[in-house]
């Protein structure tokens, strides 16, 4: 991709951000939705976040990681344990990284 194409793609990506984030805020009146769609909307953000996060932790180049000696796996497990112990997102990040970084940098896991 040359510079101009890349610039075009970036402008397009910015428009995608604006459009997706504001889509149902754009019309003057609320878009009428059947009740089941409204209930379905409750689950969609959670599912989308799970679908983004889980492959980041469990997959390497599209395949399930075959070993427990993986810094991501252990870091995520410690982060999760902290979250359900204290319910704090900052602590989840800090404890997860405190375990992840030595394993990744020190042991190369």
């Amino acid at each position: 991709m040359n510079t101009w194409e890349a610039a075009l793609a970036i402008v397009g990506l910015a428009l995608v951000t604006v459009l997706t984030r504001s889509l149902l805020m754009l019309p003057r009146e609320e878009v009428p939705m059947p009740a089941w769609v409204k209930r379905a909307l409750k689950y969609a953000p959670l599912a989308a976040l799970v679908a983004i996060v889980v492959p980041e932790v469990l997959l390497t180049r599209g395949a399930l990681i075959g070993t427990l000696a993986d810094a991501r796996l252990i870091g995520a497990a410690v982060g999760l344990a902290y979250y359900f112990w204290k319910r704090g997102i900052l602590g989840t990040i800090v404890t997860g990284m405190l375990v992840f970084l030595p394993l990744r940098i020190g042991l190369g896991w």
Partner: protein
Amino acid sequence: MHLPGDPPAPVTLRQRWQALRQHPEAARGVRDMLPMVPGMAAWGLVTGVAMVKSGLDPWLALLMSLTVFAGSSQLAALPLIATGAPVWVVLLTACIVNLRFVVYSAQWRWYFGHLPRGQRVALSYLAADINYALFIKAWPEPEPRPGQIEYFVSGAVVVWIGWQIPSIVGIVLADVIPPAWGLGFAGTLALIGLTCSLLVDRATWICAAVAALAAVAAYALPYKLHIVVAVAAAVAAGLLMERPGGGGRLVAVARRPAP
């Protein structure tokens, strides 16, 4: 940005800023958001590095950071730009990664639907995952209340600064920070915490499990379509659980009349 019962609306930008600084809800917005900054900063730093390392000109990387302002879609688009994929493929992939924002926008309408369109668009442009998760926790009643705009805007300012500065540092220091450190994992951990905060009952736990299985099973699909598959599967599971005897939320079961 004016609700009935508020003091007279400030006119100049400077007055608006002063009014925002003194508003108690603005202080709460900042207080709630500050603990999120380290994770956001590490993730922003890595995104900055990743943009330059993928071969993007540093000026274009700066443009991307300042305008696109969406970490997950930026990271999804970079390898496609690097390998010279057609622009429409890059944009389609970003649309799919961003689909969850469309759902958020339906819910932002409950709070900000009464504002003029320009302000509605400006506020929703700033609304990332973290703004959404903290806001619906701070204002669980889906209706406009005084102080909501101040709460949202102050949190959004924290996110903007907490994301853009590390991202720009990452662009500048791209050759100094070894990618092998895997600092981007801080972003993954932040999303893990965010996701867990949405797990509030049996139905949401089961939804998350279904979404996880579907996402891994469908990961090989192009354009990040595994996210769409996971959302469809999880929503279907959620709606099934709400049927009588479905085992989901008791309230939902009790409210529905028998067919």
